């Protein structure tokens, strides 16, 4: 993992798995599946089952989900972000995210890029530079278009850099403890 705000890795190449607008969390994983699930791994075969039943079996190492507007709308279930991370997706890129899904993805360490004008087709190669930085860039290899992802807030970058909400908060606690010990 790179230091906060600075990307030490070379550009990453992703394959776009494209979905439309208003993809809700029930479509990502149905509430009914959660009911009898012992763990996240048992949910993975059912990711997107209602709208793309072949998707779960087809995820490959460099895949990212590309959504339209309002990705992750509907229920605030955190498991929707967890399953997308657990199934091996590198990131989710969308024109906009629902507020609760955005927070949940940050908290579980699923990288998100918000690009309001993104154009991509299924299978496009998307080249991302500075994925850990404040404002990553994304180039669509097929069209040649270069996009700038919207900048994230300091708190969000801090959480992502720490690897999730719990490590972030615990690191704050260490700083507080150090300060009061001095």
């Amino acid at each position, binding site marked *: 993992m790179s230091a906060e705000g600075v990307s030490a890795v070379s550009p990453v190449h992703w394959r776009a798995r494209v979905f439309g*607008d*208003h993809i*809700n969390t*029930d*479509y990502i994983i*149905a*509430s*009914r599946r*959660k*009911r*009898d*699930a*012992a763990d996240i791994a048992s949910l993975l075969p059912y990711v997107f*089952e*209602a*709208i793309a039943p072949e998707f779960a079996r087809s995820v490959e190492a460099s895949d990212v989900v590309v959504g339209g*507007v*309002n990705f992750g*709308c*509907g*229920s*605030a*279930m*955190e498991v929707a*972000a967890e399953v997308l991370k657990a199934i091996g997706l590198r990131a989710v890129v969308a024109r*906009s995210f*629902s*507020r*609760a899904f955005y*927070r*949940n993805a940050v*908290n*579980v360490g699923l990288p998100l890029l918000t690009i309001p004008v993104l154009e991509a087709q299924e299978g496009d190669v998307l080249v991302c530079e500075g994925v850990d930085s404040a404002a990553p860039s994304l180039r669509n290899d097929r069209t040649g278009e270069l996009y700038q992802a919207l900048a994230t*807030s300091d*708190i969000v970058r801090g959480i992502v850099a720490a690897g*999730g*909400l*719990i490590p972030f*908060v*615990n690191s704050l*606690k260490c700083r507080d403890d150090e300060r009061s010990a001095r």
Partner: protein
Amino acid sequence: MLAERRTAVEEIMSHSLGRPVRSGDVAWFPIAMMLATDGSAPAALRTATAVHRRRLSLGDGVVLCCDHYDPRSTQFAGARHAQMREFATLHGAAFYEFGSGIGHQLAVERGHVRPGMLTLAADSHAPTYGALGAVAFGVGATDLGLAIATGELWLTVPGTIRVRLRGRLPRSTMAKDLVLDLIRRLGPAGAADCALEFVGDGVASLGIDERLTIANMAVESGAATAIFPVDSATDAYLSGIGIHRDTYRDFRFDERASVCEELTVDCSTIEPLVSGAHELAVITPLPSGRQPVDVVYIGTCTGGRASDIVAVVEVLRAAGGKADGVQLIVAPASRSIAEELSAAGIVDELRRLGATILAAGCGSCCGTAGPIPGDGTVVVSTANRNFKGRMGNPRATIHLASPRTCARAAVDGWIQV
């Protein structure tokens, strides 16, 4: 220097923080009430335990509700509920066993929400509490766990869309029709990241049940939250549940505060509406083609209150009963509501009308605690979501409508879509 003019959300969040904030500001806010359901509690409590920054003597600030999972229909529910009960006993949280009701209804009727509070729930329909003049955000389990452990959460102050309500709803329509109309106008993301602030002379014509329905379903327009003013109806409701006027503060909406957008709703022109299948992008008035209906579902945090169920019974009673072949399922939003209806003879009447009555809770809404519709089944429901598979079967079709419209469909055996 003029005082800043603040929206309701800015006022309440500023008061919680102890310094002025405006839309777009990010800060760590103290949270007065935080609720988790059995859907979100296991992960929330795991996070709270992992973070562990304060002594967990929580009074009634933390509320744990067993509403999504029915121990009769899944073996994992009992273990979840036991874990929640144990945490509540150990740390002093409020705990509601399965059958008590839907968390959002319990939060309101058991006095956990008061005007002017900043609250969270690990469930997207938290904004329901806005009906009582509180600010409520729906968050995920990890966020809620952090709030339980520390009493705070980082939040962004949302912008506001001011919705001016004029006049009153016609007798044939209900609050559900008003909020469906609003979603039709805004679209599924039209209110993204904004609070919907309801003002105007039309507010006084809406009872608390109606405000709860509207605040609840407002989230389907992408709204971050929804909020109503506090008036004599709010005071009367709270007084009725033993919450005295001097235990909550007076605050005013400043209608001159700057907002992202202003909408006006002429309540008198609202007509009965129904959604298309699988999404809320299509919402139409009733006269059109006829769609045979198999299941009519009355319940959920949107439409499971006493006034909703009474409206249903009135339609059925006047028509002499439901159509053969229509399954009518009724899930009261809380045990208190069920008891109130029982005392009024409504539960017996529903049984005579052939209704199946579920335990108070989320029931069939998200396919977790009630009957699951079969393949090819058409459901019309008082719920707030109809995504494909929402009630547990992607091969069933769900239309959303008001309790009265749903009752009409039960009588006719079809709905006009």
